[in-house]
């Protein structure tokens, strides 16, 4: 399955090359023309079946994931690190990681409970007190295989069991997988699909990607937090698993263009597909950057709901993802057939 295959690949913001290579290989094997820019964004040109029918449409999904960056190698051979993007610190403790381009295995250790005072246990562990243990005997030993500046990604096995998908980086490999699924289909119109970099550190890839292709309309395929857990009140759930893909009305970076949002609702209703609205108004997406590129783009966001994003293991439902693919498919066809007046 594309989502789980993509989930397994390390690709922290700024270090997306292996994800990009995986996607490039797929595009080449399907005969889809593609190129990259100097930041690492990957552009795929989907040719329409009807000549000259350029839709002015951009579809995008970010390739990068949150992770860590090695900041120093200690005398003992342990590694200190910075966060890259909004990693949930509480989920780092005692989790395995992969360090650097050669995927050196490491673990984020924690002091044994037996050695802690009672007050110690009541305070959350701070990131500056954590370190990665790769089994090195000392600094020299560690520096044979890792160095300051190596990227670090979570290590967890992706899996599909019935309808349940689990793994790291489902935000946003689920979006990448959906875009790849779309690119395998035939459409009457041409459009550009962009796999962006550095979304998690400030939508940086999308800024230049949108400037380059100057779309009229953009739809961003994302993965968003489902907080439908017992510890959160209903109004804080944002999205729920199993309730279909979520349409953004607004987040911190964008007010989704009403015509784009209306069209998403229209095609979902027509196809009788379940969908929901993302109820949390915070966080940013590439759509924010795209909407402000050049002289502006009418942009919207469709997301797969996902529990425990920005942590070592997240969970989503395949049916939500499939509905996202089908609604996106219908959206593209509708934009071609009926146009979309902005």
């Amino acid at each position, binding site marked *: 399955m594309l989502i789980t295959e993509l989930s397994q690949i390390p690709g922290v913001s700024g270090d997306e090359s292996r994800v990009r290579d995986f996607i490039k290989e797929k595009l080449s094997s399907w005969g889809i023309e593609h190129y990259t820019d100097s930041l690492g964004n990957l552009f795929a040109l989907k040719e329409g079946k009807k000549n000259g029918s350029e839709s002015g449409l951009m579809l995008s999904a970010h390739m990068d994931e949150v992770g860590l960056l090695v900041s120093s190698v*200690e005398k*003992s051979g*342990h590694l200190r690190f910075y966060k890259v993007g909004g990693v*949930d610190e*509480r*989920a780092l*403790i*005692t*989790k*395995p990681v992969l360090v650097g381009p050669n995927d*050196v*295995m*490491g*673990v*984020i*250790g*924690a*002091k*044994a*409970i*037996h*050695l802690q005072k009672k007050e110690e*246990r*009541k*305070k*959350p*562990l701070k990131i500056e*007190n954590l*370190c990665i*243990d*790769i*089994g*090195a*005997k000392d600094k020299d*030993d*560690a520096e044979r*295989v890792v160095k300051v500046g190596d990227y670090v990604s979570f*290590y*967890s*096995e992706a*899996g599909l*069991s019935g*309808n*349940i998908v*689990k793994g790291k980086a489902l935000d946003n490999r689920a979006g990448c997988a959906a875009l790849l699924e779309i690119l395998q289909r035939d459409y009457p119109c041409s459009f550009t699909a962009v796999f962006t970099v550095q979304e998690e550190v400030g939508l940086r890839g999308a800024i230049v990607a949108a400037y380059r292709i100057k779309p009229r309309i953009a739809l961003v395929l994302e993965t968003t*937090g489902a*907080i*439908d*857990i*017992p*510890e*959160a009140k209903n109004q*804080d759930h944002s999205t729920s*698993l199993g309730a279909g893909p979520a349409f953004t009305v607004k987040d911190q970076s964008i007010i989704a263009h009403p015509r784009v949002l209306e069209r998403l609702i229209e095609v979902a209703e027509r196809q009788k597909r379940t969908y929901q609205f993302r109820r949390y108004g915070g966080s940013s997406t590439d759509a924010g950057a795209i909407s402000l590129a050049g002289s502006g783009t009418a942009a919207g966001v469709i997301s797969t709901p996902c*529990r*425990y994003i920005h*942590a070592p*293991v997240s*969970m989503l*439902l395949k049916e939500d993802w499939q509905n996202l693919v089908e609604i996106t498919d219908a959206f593209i066809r509708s934009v071609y057939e009926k146009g979309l007046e902005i």
Partner: protein
Amino acid sequence: MLDEGGLLKKVNLHDYLRKIIQIDGVSGYEDNVAAFISETFSPYVDSTRTDNLGNLILYKRGSKKDAPSILFAAHMDEIGLIVTKIEDNGFLRFTSLGGFDVRTLPGQEVTVYGQKPVNGIIGFKPSYLDLDEEKGQSVEMKNLFIDTGFPREQVEKNIRIGSIAAIKRGFLPLLNNRCAGKAFDDRAGIAVLWQCARELVRIEHEAHLYFVATVQEEVGTRGAIVSTYGISPDLGIAVDVCHGDFPGAMEHEVSPLGEGAVVTVGPNIHPLMAKRLFETAEEYNLPCQRDVSPGPTGTDARAIQISLEGIPTALVSVPLRYMHTSVELIAPEDVKIAGRLLAYFAAGLNRSFLEELSCL
């Protein structure tokens, strides 16, 4: 007959460790681990039995009839979780069997043992939803839950209150042959016994040996209490793990990895047993470290010493970093050395040493 060349070579210690830590055996539910141990010790022992609590007792006869008997105890249980409530939306509330640092649990994968085993993730609330009074506080177990992804109706067909959950973690190979994973506390100790049994294939010993894989150590050394009574050995050695060195640790609380077996001294330990262990290490050139424990140790040695009329007891440990987490980390060479130390110690046991021990 034992196919010595074959068996000794076929499975190495690293493979043994890789296999044994991936078998789930939460305190009170050690059956699967016991089956593995029973099978892997069978070429090296004369008989195997299980007592009423589930302790697995592996007996290896010595060469002299009235020679002393010694018990080597390593516990096969691991800390785990137990389901306390099924929420309306299918999430599972839980409490712990054994001591967890709750801060290590968010985002941890588990296997829940319903009628069929099912995977779950320990879920938690994102920090932006923290109430003012929760800010700067660590998460509590009552605010965590296991998420299997299934709705309540499906969950209830499989899982009930009281279902056990084990921490899910593979074997993580690191530099220098070191490795990390769950349950090295105390499967590393079981591996020490296995190594010892393998060494004794080619070492003559008078003493009669009982290798015991104990149950329920993590909830109060309960397996050791009854297995020691049942066997009634002349001597006892608990084999467990001790805290390995890590950045920020107090030096006196930890033992460095890769520097050999650790022998404890203190009131829980018979001084002549510890002395003999150090002498044996020196004689056979085995690196050995000294650790101090000021009272009853938190190991099976605690129970063994005060069994029956009192049993001369020692504690041999393997240094382990990040104890009671899913990334417990060891250097397998320490396991090998500890196994050899026990084998040579066993080989040196005779009636006269036993008599020395009771003349204090």
